[in-house]
């Protein structure tokens, strides 16, 4: 229980309000939906959400069922960051002219999946980050295009079988390494970049709050298991998130004004081994998308090696 960071009455300390409302159509055990719940809890209702097309848009907005307690706009797949730019700059001018939004300035949140962020929306995201738009961009990374039927994205991990990177007689599934979104954000010299995972709700909420408070762009890359796309049990999302973090596959860190800081060191969380990058097989084989890797020890080895390497690179950045 310590490793997840909640004490016995921790839940009581959280805001009770639920700006993300029940009755949304996410699959059973959907962690991206849980992420929305946690994020909106952290920010509260002084918020405008600009959503990209994708699961979280579809499940929260089939007419007339609005799962949002805050103002929300969906425009298209690749442009959430650009829409947010317009929203934010529009609000800024209208405030200046004393027309609307004259009280506290609402937080502006852009929301995209891994596809809507790392692939088709990367340009719009880069533009908004570079221009200094005062907003928070949250990428919920469920590691594929789930809304359209589990196709690969550049966030899909090596070896995962998806509908466009299927494992087959001569294929081991995805043959590329996951794109490092956080470091793309860091390269824009924005004030705040962080990774997070709903399995660590207090860490995630604290980061969301920081992201909102910071003046200028903030980027959050959130690891969000999807039972449907990962072909795992509906009850396993939290556990998988934890395993991904503990194994070093998805390290939790933040970069404040260019300064890297590891949020949770796998070494301190893992009970079994000194090595922060323990066996990842335990993580992989709870998911149908990796099932075909059984017996492919060289590939698992390579994945493990890569995780170790990335971890060392990250560690080195914190020591600068």
């Amino acid at each position, binding site marked *: 229980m310590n490793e997840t960071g909640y004490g016995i009455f921790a839940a*009581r300390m959280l805001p009770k309000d639920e700006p993300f409302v029940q009755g949304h159509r996410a699959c059973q055990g959907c962690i991206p939906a849980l992420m929305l719940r946690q994020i909106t809890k952290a920010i509260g209702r002084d918020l405008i959400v600009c959503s990209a097309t994708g699961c979280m848009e579809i499940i929260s907005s089939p007419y007339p069922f609005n799962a949002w307690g805050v103002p929300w706009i969906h425009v298209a797949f690749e442009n959430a960051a650009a829409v947010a730019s317009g929203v934010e700059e529009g609000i800024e001018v209208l405030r200046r002219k004393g027309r609307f939004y004259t009280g506290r300035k609402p937080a502006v949140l852009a929301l995209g999946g891994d596809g809507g962020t790392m692939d088709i929306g990367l340009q719009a995201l880069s533009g908004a980050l570079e221009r200094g738009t005062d907003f928070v961009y949250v990428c919920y990374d469920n590691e594929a295009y789930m809304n359209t039927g589990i196709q690969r994205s550049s966030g899909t991990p090596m070896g995962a079988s998806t509908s466009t990177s299927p494992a087959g007689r001569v294929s081991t599934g995805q043959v590329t390494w996951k794109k490092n979104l956080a470091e793309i954000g860091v390269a824009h010299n924005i004030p705040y970049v962080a990774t997070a995972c709903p399995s660590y709700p207090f860490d995630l909420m604290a980061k969301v709050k920081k992201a909102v408070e910071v003046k200028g762009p903030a980027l959050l890359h959130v690891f969000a298991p999807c039972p449907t796309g990962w072909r795992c049990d509906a009850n396993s999302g939290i556990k998988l998130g934890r395993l991904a973090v503990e194994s070093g596959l998805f390290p939790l860190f933040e970069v404040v004004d260019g300064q890297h800081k590891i949020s949770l060191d796998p070494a301190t969380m893992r009970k079994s081994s000194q090595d922060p990058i323990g066996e990842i097989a335990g993580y992989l084989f709870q998911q149908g998308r990796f099932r075909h890797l059984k017996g492919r020890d060289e590939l698992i080895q390579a994945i493990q090696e890569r995780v170790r390497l990335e971890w060392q690179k990250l560690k080195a950045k914190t020591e600068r």
Partner: protein
Amino acid sequence: MKTKLNPTWRELELGCTVVEAGTSAEYKTGDWRSFYPKTDEDKCIACGVCYLFCPDHSRHIAPRKKKVEGAMYTHYFDFNFQFCKGCGICAAECPTGAIVMIEEGKK
């Protein structure tokens, strides 16, 4: 919900906007469930882990008092079966194993 389910084109708001917030609460996802969670209240220590991890906010705070091993807890949790989809996360994550998943129709 004031917003009509099947409005005529004249009744639609400008740009198909849903001018009401939170109308999804009218859509009960509870009937998606094939297993339902059940709490052994003696095992529950009111830690709120289930509440924190429910993607459907179907584990809500129901303030009442309960005495466990000498301590008094005022925060306590109930399921909202109108929305609970039966994913089993609460059961899987409960640190004391207080929640079990039971097939619908069975006790």
